[in-house]
């Protein structure tokens, strides 16, 4: 069944079709749930108060080149598929409490973003999950103003959790600092302190490289050699691409100082997947290829995740991606806050989410919570080799007075964010 899953754009997979065939049964279930919901109201009218919650997922679709690997083709419903599952989860829970949820999903090209976002605001949406880059995110959050809570689902920029933070924005996506700290801790646990850093030439690659330099300083690793891989454009996938790669990468990595591990900083997806097996000196690769820091992946099974993956696959007909997980998590944060506060006031939900009382199970072994100083979600980072969870950071022994999770990313004294004071 798994082999039939659909990765690319357009078309419907066999599994999705069978999911559609099963709709009859699911409709019955839904009906049962609705009946249950009304039944509930009759016997616990005293405690259950009808609460209606509206939320939106707002996605900007940027023009992009094809990924190096076909496995990384972006499905059309990226993020939205996670939203669909979260909506079902929230509705099921809400049925027992008299809470109902409505979800709106919008995908727009960058040039239409402001108008579409304004229309959302004019429609009264005040809980908005945004999938956009840093500049767009900041502009939209500022347009939204007070009274709206923006949940950043995908932007990793550490600046958003630092001097560019906004009081009306919380971050479900981990910062680059959290991701690079997760890699650094594992490298140190392995006693691989000498790093050969290879970074791309685009701005996002530079930011990622800088984050690895900071993580190296933080955890006592040493970058013994650094090289930039220029993005010269052109076709990435050709019929015999590997022939050239097999000749170029060894030469590119030749004569580096003695190192334990190669750290790849390639957010642009230009070269990192070519590094493992083509290095001049045989060493493990981590970062943008080899062992990668991720929030989630479709093979993750620990901590009850199997049942979560199966529910997602049955609903959407494909494997879960990080973006789906992060959007699911964002909507579950809202759902959990509504469940515990029995209300839908955006300000009250924000206060609860940022409080010590908030916690949410997220299939990663410990509860996820929020940093009150910059609105960043604390969460473990999975280290993934493309097939399995190899390890999970924070690593054993990285202690912190508040939570080991605060050993990843900007801790309170390091964050210049003052919007949450």
């Amino acid at each position, binding site marked *: 069944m798994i082999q039939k899953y659909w990765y690319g754009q357009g078309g419907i997979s066999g599994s999705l079709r069978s999911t559609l065939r099963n709709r009859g049964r699911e409709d019955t*279930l839904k009906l*049962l*749930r609705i009946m*249950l919901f009304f*039944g*509930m109201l009759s*016997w*616990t009218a005293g405690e259950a108060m009808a609460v209606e919650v509206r939320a939106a997922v707002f996605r900007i679709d940027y023009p992009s080149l094809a990924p190096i690997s076909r496995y990384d083709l972006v499905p059309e419903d990226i993020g939205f598929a996670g939203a669909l599952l979260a909506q*079902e*989860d929230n509705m*099921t*829970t809400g049925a*027992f*409490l008299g809470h109902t949820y409505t979800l709106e999903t919008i995908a727009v090209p960058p040039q239409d973003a402001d108008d579409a976002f304004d229309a959302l605001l004019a429609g009264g949406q005040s809980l908005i999950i945004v999938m956009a880059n840093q500049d767009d995110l900041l502009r939209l959050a500022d347009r939204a103003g007070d009274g709206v809570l923006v949940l950043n689902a995908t932007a990793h920029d550490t600046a958003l959790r630092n001097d560019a933070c906004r009081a009306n924005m919380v971050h479900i996506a981990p910062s680059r600092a959290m991701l690079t700290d997760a890699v650094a801790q594992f490298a140190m646990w392995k006693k691989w302190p000498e790093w050969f850093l290879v970074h791309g030439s685009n701005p996002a690659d530079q930011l990622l490289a800088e984050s690895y330099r900071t993580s190296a300083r933080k955890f006592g690793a040493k970058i013994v050699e650094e090289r930039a891989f220029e993005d010269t454009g052109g076709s990435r996938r050709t019929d015999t691409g590997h022939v050239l790669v097999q000749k170029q990468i060894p030469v590119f990595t030749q004569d580096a100082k003695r190192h334990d591990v190669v750290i790849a900083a390639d957010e642009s997806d230009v070269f990192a997947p070519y590094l493992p097996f083509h290095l001049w000196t045989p060493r493990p690769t981590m970062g943008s290829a080899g062992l990668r820091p991720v929030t989630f992946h479709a093979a993750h099974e620990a901590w*009850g995740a199997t*049942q*979560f993956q*199966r*529910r997602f696959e*049955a609903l959407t007909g494909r494997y879960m991606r990080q973006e789906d997980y992060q959007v699911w998590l964002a909507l*579950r944060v809202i759902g*959990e806050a509504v*469940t*515990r506060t029995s209300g839908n006031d955006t300000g009250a939900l924000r206060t609860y989410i940022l409080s010590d009382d908030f*916690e*949410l*199970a997220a299939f990663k*072994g*410990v*509860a996820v919570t929020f940093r009150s100083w910059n609105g960043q979600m604390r969460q473990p980072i999975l280290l993934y080799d493309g097939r399995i969870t190899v390890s999970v950071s924070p690593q054993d022994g990285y202690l912190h007075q508040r*939570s*080991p999770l605060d050993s990843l990313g900007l801790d309170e004294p390091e964050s210049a964010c003052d919007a949450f004071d």
Partner: protein
Amino acid sequence: MHRLILTTALVGALATPAVANKVYVSNEKGNSVTVIDSETWEVMTEFDAGNRPRGITISPDGKLLYVAASDDDQVKVFDAETYEELYALPSGPDPELFVLHPSGNPLYIANEDDNLVTVTDTESHRVLAEIPVGVEPEGMGISPDAKWVVNTSETTNMAHFISTGDYKIKHNVLVDQRPRYAQFTDDGSLLFVTSEIGGTVSVMDIAADGTPTMRSKIGFELPGVLPEWLQPVGLKVTKDDKYAFVALGPANRVAVIDVERLEVVKYIIVGQRVWQMAFTPDQKYLITTNGNSNDVTIIDVADQEAIKSVQVGQQPWGVVVAPD
């Protein structure tokens, strides 16, 4: 070993004749059930039990062993003596935990993937009811008078009180994150619900008509153990309702709660990732499944001490002991 022989001898001399009971342990990764003799604590045998066996229970007469073969989407029924697979019961997809009516019929099953509790007649093998519950149902407890089945849903974070009379949910109680297990005291006056990620045990008073009222939440604290690792899962209460034993997962400890004071009085070190537990019928021993060290720990209930560990199959999950 010396001490164990001594204990056994004492039991033989002072109490009713010691009866060996079979202990059945489901091995989630090993796809098997390990059988242990409760007198010698030796492994008697290990037999195939389907794909990903988790929940395990036994009929009141000790003849039928029920195993939730999660990846086979069925409950397999074995002859408890010959270990022969007799038949499978329809369970709904991905059965994980279940609880048997004290009479031996029906079986109440949690279906994690479908947000359902399935009620299956163990004689006619028919599904009697499907009850929609919260997201990811897992824990299943039954009240001593068998009027209530309590299901916990791990993502919805509720205990659902299902009437066994009409299979309708009558009460829903919110608890902390990821509730895994529900257990009544023997007199039915209290219900314990463990929350794995919340790190707490919720204690509810149960009125005569079954209405629950949250009384308190018990937390755990242990020097040298990260609070995040104190994850309560399985819970068992002694017949005299004096002590509750709580398996604390990756903390590798079983906590002992004084039921009257609702306070933790002791932590017992056991194997790694301890999840489910079962008493021997005389309640002298408690057996814990330790998923990451592939063994079970035998706890002396009166002394509140671990006395032995027994190697079983891969990733032990559930355990049940044959009745006398």
